[in-house]
């Protein structure tokens, strides 16, 4: 689907080949971007020379290519939305956007696309913008190699870096999003691709999915966000080879899955997150070949989850490997490597001969009574866990890995 969109896009740009270039700059004949847009014919190219442009809200309703040379600065003077685009076939490239207005009612953005198609937003820089790139009701858009940086001093009035609402067939590649509310935000977005992005230090989520089906994200890095990635009320999402690093805090997760179905989580690494994966109301997902290393909780599996397959993952040096709040287990947990496993392998098939129970008694107690966390690292808890290991009472009896791996998997 995405490929087809790409081809259509290329074909479309070829047909608009005979275009003139208008140069904008302090020393040029055209000094204002707004004037150039008014002058330009569909398909023309606007080349913006270095300088600072303060033109309030620029509205683009023609298919134009707007390119910056040496990153000209478009200043919203803390009042305006900078680019509002409502057209097809446009390119915005090499510009630097600063200081958009902030509003609690309207979502002011540096670049806002309304009902637009075949748009490319490439290699731009964003500083201190409320929303960076904002797409509503648009499709076939390429957002590539942009750098978005919001400033922390505006902490409580900050928008999303790349915000998509009711879109489809969007490609988001090699962007860097820092310090926003959500780094990348998807609501009602389908058939889209998020690759090679770096999302760091965002207040809420590095990447946020809501009601967005059939999307894929791979090779992204989510670091130090309020929570790494939240995927909610969605089905058929593919999450491959991403890194979730140090998303740490009292309500932080590496990956938060809520009401997710038929999705694939493969080859990711979860490092030093408060909770590696939190799963609620989710079913028929495959969690395979991931690496869980030094997380607080590697996997929090709520009782409302069923038919998930958790296999061939590495669980190493996590405070808790797995916790759940129920007693009924309807998920399949098999062939994982658990560094706490103390079993043996007599027949040398590299699989432990006795099952492993990844749930500790204390973990279960805390899930039922969160206040019991106060007893953490007390002598009592130590004894309880030892006793439970010898004689399981509280932990779900059938929750176990019947074929634990003896050695960690090598995913490299």
């Amino acid at each position, binding site marked *: 689907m995405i490929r087809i969109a790409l081809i259509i896009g290329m074909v479309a740009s070829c047909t608009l080949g005979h275009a003139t270039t208008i140069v904008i700059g302090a020393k040029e004949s055209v000094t204002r971007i707004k004037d150039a847009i008014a002058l330009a014919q569909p398909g023309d190219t606007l080349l913006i020379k270095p300088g600072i442009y303060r033109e309030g809200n620029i509205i683009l309703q023609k298919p134009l290519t707007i390119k910056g040379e040496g990153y000209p600065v478009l200043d919203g003077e803390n009042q305006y939305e900078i680019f509002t685009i409502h057209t097809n076939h446009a390119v915005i490239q090499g510009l630097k956007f600063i200081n958009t207005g902030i509003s*609690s009612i309207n*979502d002011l953005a540096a670049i806002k696309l309304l009902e637009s198609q075949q748009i490319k937003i490439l290699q731009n820089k964003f500083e201190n913008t409320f929303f960076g790139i904002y797409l509503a009701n648009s499709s076939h858009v390429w957002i590539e190699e942009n750098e978005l940086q919001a400033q922390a001093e505006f*902490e*409580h009035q900050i928008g999303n870096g790349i915000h998509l*609402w009711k879109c489809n067939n969007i490609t988001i590649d090699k962007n860097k999003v820092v310090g926003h*509310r959500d780094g990348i935000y998807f*609501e009602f977005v389908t058939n889209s691709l998020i690759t090679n992005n770096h999302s760091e230090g965002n*207040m*809420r*989520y590095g990447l946020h999915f*809501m*009601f967005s089906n059939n999307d894929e994200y791979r090779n992204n890095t989510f670091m130090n966000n*309020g*929570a790494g990635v*939240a995927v*909610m009320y969605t089905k058929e999402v593919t999450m491959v080879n991403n890194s979730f690093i140090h998303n740490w805090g*009292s*309500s932080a*997760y590496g990956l*938060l899955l*809520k009401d997710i179905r038929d999705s694939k989580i493969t080859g990711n690494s979860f490092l030093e997150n408060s909770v590696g994966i*939190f799963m*609620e109301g989710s079913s028929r997902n495959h969690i395979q070949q991931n690496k869980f290393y030094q997380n607080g909780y590697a996997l929090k599996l709520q009782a409302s989850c069923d038919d998930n397959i958790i296999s061939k993952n590495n669980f190493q040096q996590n405070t808790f490997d797995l916790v759940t709040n129920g007693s009924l287990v309807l998920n399949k947990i098999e062939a994982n490597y658990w560094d706490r496993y103390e079993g043996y392998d007599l027949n040398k098939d590299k699989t432990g001969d006795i099952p492993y129970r990844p749930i500790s008694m204390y973990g279960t107690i805390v899930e039922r009574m969160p206040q019991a966390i106060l007893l953490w690292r007390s002598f009592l808890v130590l004894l309880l866990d030892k006793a439970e290991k010898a004689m399981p009472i509280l932990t779900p009896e059938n929750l176990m890995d019947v074929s634990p791996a003896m050695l960690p998997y090598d995913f490299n």
Partner: protein
Amino acid sequence: MRLFLFSALCWIVISCAVKPEPLLYGRDACHTCKMTLVDRKFGAELVTEKGKVYKFDDLNCMLTFYHSGYEEASAFKFIQVVDFTNPEKLIDAQNAWYLKSEDLRTPMASEVAAFESEESTQVFKKEWKAVLLSWGEIQTQFK
């Protein structure tokens, strides 16, 4: 005797604390959807008779929990929502006015904003082409 004293102490400490707490945006997480509260125009809170506080980022999250039967509906002492025109201010949900519009972007897509007075709804009602709803109607909307 000791146990009795102990329980009495527990009771004293607990009983003096049944009141709503302010929503801490950027820190508190929604009880239903686990999202961190960030949008100060929206939010809701339930407080049980026993003083337990549940916080929500959007009205539908609150109602989902309200109807889930996890806590008896009669057990809620306070049902509160944030006034759209007064960010962060919690008002009584049962006496509030609600506007529902597709133009409204709320944290969990309820598309509903709450208002303390009917007058303040009027400007927005026109602007958003919104429907005015009462607490009763809102409840049936998100059952």
